[in-house]
């Protein structure tokens, strides 16, 4: 395959959700939902309870047929080419979905065999996924005797036995203690570094903000935002901004800052010695802005990029949260 062809293949979205509608008993769970997930990205999927996250995931992983619209995974239609889609994905539902009477090894061996792996392949793959999820010491334990975090890891190991290119994880960190959550996130980072595409639905926004390259926010069955995490966290969504905190008296600095070339807008934050400076990237970069401020002899106490937290973005974009 030529480099150009490979580049073009790499740029093709892994998941393409186009104008999908799905209703349950007259209630529209997905209302013309469209978004894309790019390859080798860690894409967060965020929304309030009942927003349509799980329904979207189930449509993508072929468990639900979309009533309208098209969903493609690696270019395969989820309705017409279910088996091809299922071979390429691993879906971890929001419950453990484990056979509690089995040992961890039996459980993984069963699923590996169900994916058609040979005896030798199974032995190798199971050892690998046990090592990756740090479960090799517990492989002969009954699943019913494992902690929540361990069961979640077992579930993740199960998803990995067929070496899927795309992982769909529905609330993988729910109900886990902080340590188990951090460990799970570390495993996800490791998986991303292996080139897997991960589509993760979660409520833990701080971790998503740190982990994800892209995010889709959904509310009441409608996509409110889908794109890069960077883009979402920009305050206005158009121009970069910085926050400047001044030591001592704050009066009078706004006019001086406004005079700097490339500065578009300066706002003082609620009477505090703090200014929000929005600037035009084309005319000014961060270095020159900072030099300009120093040149005004302003006693700088702090200077930082003005980014919204994901929580704020989420609250702004989802209606019920702010009502």
């Amino acid at each position, binding site marked *: 395959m030529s480099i150009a062809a490979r580049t073009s293949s790499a740029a093709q979205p892994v998941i393409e959700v186009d104008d999908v509608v799905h209703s349950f008993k007259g209630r529209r769970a997905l209302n013309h939902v469209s978004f894309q997930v790019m390859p080798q990205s860690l894409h967060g999927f965020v929304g309030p309870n009942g927003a349509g996250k799980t329904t979207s995931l*189930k449509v993508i*992983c*072929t*468990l*639900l047929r979309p009533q309208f619209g098209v969903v493609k995974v690696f270019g395969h239609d989820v309705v017409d080419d*279910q*088996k091809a889609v*299922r*071979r390429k*994905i691993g*879906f971890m*539902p929001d*419950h*453990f*979905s*484990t*056979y*509690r*009477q*089995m*040992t961890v*090894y*039996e459980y993984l*061996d*069963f*699923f*590996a*065999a*169900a*994916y*058609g792996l040979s*005896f030798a392949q*199974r032995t190798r793959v199971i050892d690998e996924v046990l090592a990756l999820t740090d479960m090799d010491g517990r492989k*002969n334990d*009954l699943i*019913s005797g494992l902690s929540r975090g361990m069961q979640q890891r077992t579930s993740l190991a*199960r998803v990995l036995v067929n070496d899927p290119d795309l992982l769909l994880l529905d609330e993988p960190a729910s109900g886990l203690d902080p340590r188990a959550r951090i460990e799970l996130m570390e495993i996800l980072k490791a998986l991303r570094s292996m080139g897997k595409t991960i589509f993760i639905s979660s409520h833990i926004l701080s971790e998503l903000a740190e982990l994800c390259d892209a995010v889709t926010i959904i509310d009441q069955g409608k996509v409110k935002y889908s794109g890069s995490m960077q883009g979402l966290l920009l305050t206005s969504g158009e121009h970069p901004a910085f926050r400047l905190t001044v030591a001592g008296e704050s009066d009078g600095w706004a006019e001086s800052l406004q005079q700097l070339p490339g500065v578009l807008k300066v706002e003082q934050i609620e009477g505090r010695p703090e200014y929000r400076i929005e600037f035009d990237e084309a005319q000014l970069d961060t270095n020159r802005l900072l030099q300009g401020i120093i040149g005004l002899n302003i006693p700088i106490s702090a200077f930082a990029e003005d980014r919204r937290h994901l929580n704020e973005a989420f609250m702004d974009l989802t209606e019920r949260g702010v009502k």
Partner: protein
Amino acid sequence: MSHIRGEPRTVRPRTPRRCGNFLFGAWRHPAHDTEQSPFLAQRRFLMYYGLLALLTRSLRQDARQLRNHVFRLTFVGFIYLSLLWATVTSAAFGAPGLRFFVSIAWLNAVFITCAGIGFFASAITEEKEEETIGLLLMAGLNPLAILLGKSTSRLIQASMLVVVQFPFMLLAVTLGGVTPHQIISAYVALLAFMTFLANVALVWSTICERSGSAAGLTCAVLVAYALAPYAAPQISTQLKEWGLTGTSGFGSIIHGTLEWGADLSVYHRLSRIMETGFQEPVFSQQVISNVFGGIVCFAFAWAIFTPFTKDSSGGAVTRGMVLKSNSRVRFLSSGRAWPLPLVWKDFQFIAGGFGFAVVKLVAYVMLATGLVSYFWATVDTPGIGVDELYASCACCTIAIEASILAARIFYDEVRLQTLSSLLMLPRSIPYLGYSKALGCVMGLLPSVGCLLLGTILLPGGGSRLAVNALIDPMVWGFVLILMIFLHLVALLSLFVKWGALPLAIVIMVPLTPCCPIFSLLVLVAGPGGVRDSAGAFPAIATVWILIGLFCFVFQMMIASRLQEIGSK
């Protein structure tokens, strides 16, 4: 926070609300009451009345749910239709009232036995399986309140089903052949039996962790209960032969108990009630012993409730006799998954694996040997040979085992929420379903092996019997009924949390005789039907087509339901 600083608190009594489970709202911890409280007596009354909180709630819920009334109405409708049929055919047969009464009374007995086992045995185990028993205790309900609410309410609900028939049954008197005394006696006997059954099941439900185990043990008690009238006189005679007569104090107690035991069974009692000229009192030994037994069982369940529910493991799944794959006894371990992994999983974890298969095989061989030896030694029944008896017993065992496996085939998948993971495999739903069925069928191999072994080894033409059975359309007709039943059980297990098997019995037993399938079967395989006019093979072929058709319809419904549950 005045009470923290030690200032006296004014305790304002809460007035009970007149809706929902108001009694929870009225309950207060006794430590909050003071001697001076004018409402102390009222509160104490409410606390004791709180015993009935769950019972009241269950009964109210039952009264409000439309489906319960529809079910009772359907049952009454069925009785009405039977009455109508008896009236229509009254010219052709003698004593139509008695015939009608006999059929309905036996139908009730079978219904209570089969459906009651599952219905009553899950009273406490369902709370254990849902891990909600601790929540009930934390809500301030004591064991007695829980037992009343969970079991007695079910007894009342089931009794309603019997009581509602009574006015219709009295119409049988006008048809002739039966007296009101017989009808009253029969219904009192049935209600007493139901009390006994409900409370025996309650004891096992309190002891066991899972509904299946509780139902199985209740079933075992019922077998002993049904055999008591036949076993008690023989035991009594045997004891007298050994010198333990009824004249001594201990002997009189033993023989007195055995006499009561002979009258314990409702089946025995119903047979006597249906005899012409029945004049025995309504409150017979059966009624008294059954009600007394029920009360004793309830008290026993109350006494053992706390120790048996304190450390409930929430109906944890067990591996039965299957050892871990790293066990040294490799034969009893599950080993590695087979190339057909679902067959492996269901054989090991639903059918019990190799270990359980060996245990079953040994048990069946011993039972079969005992049965055949006893039959040869004692029975000399004309018209039935040991080979026929053996084959019937083996077929019944296979049918019972198959029914239990059909109830379990999807049970764990639904309970453990693993269907979504299975459906995500790159396999079709029929592949998943047939693989699971094959795994369960492997669990039937010991009983099928015993049947084949007996057919080959038994003298008296076992192989001839097998060939005759294979070319008999009626035998295939029974296979059809069994297949429909098994599919129905599997389908129902995808709709109900527990009791798919008894529910299927409830649906099949009264419906089968009046179902079009049964009429069609009689037309095809019965005397005077296709068999007589066109020969056995066309009739068998027709039955096969029917089997295929009905299995296909049921399997489509099962597949659709599996998809629905998996995507929930």
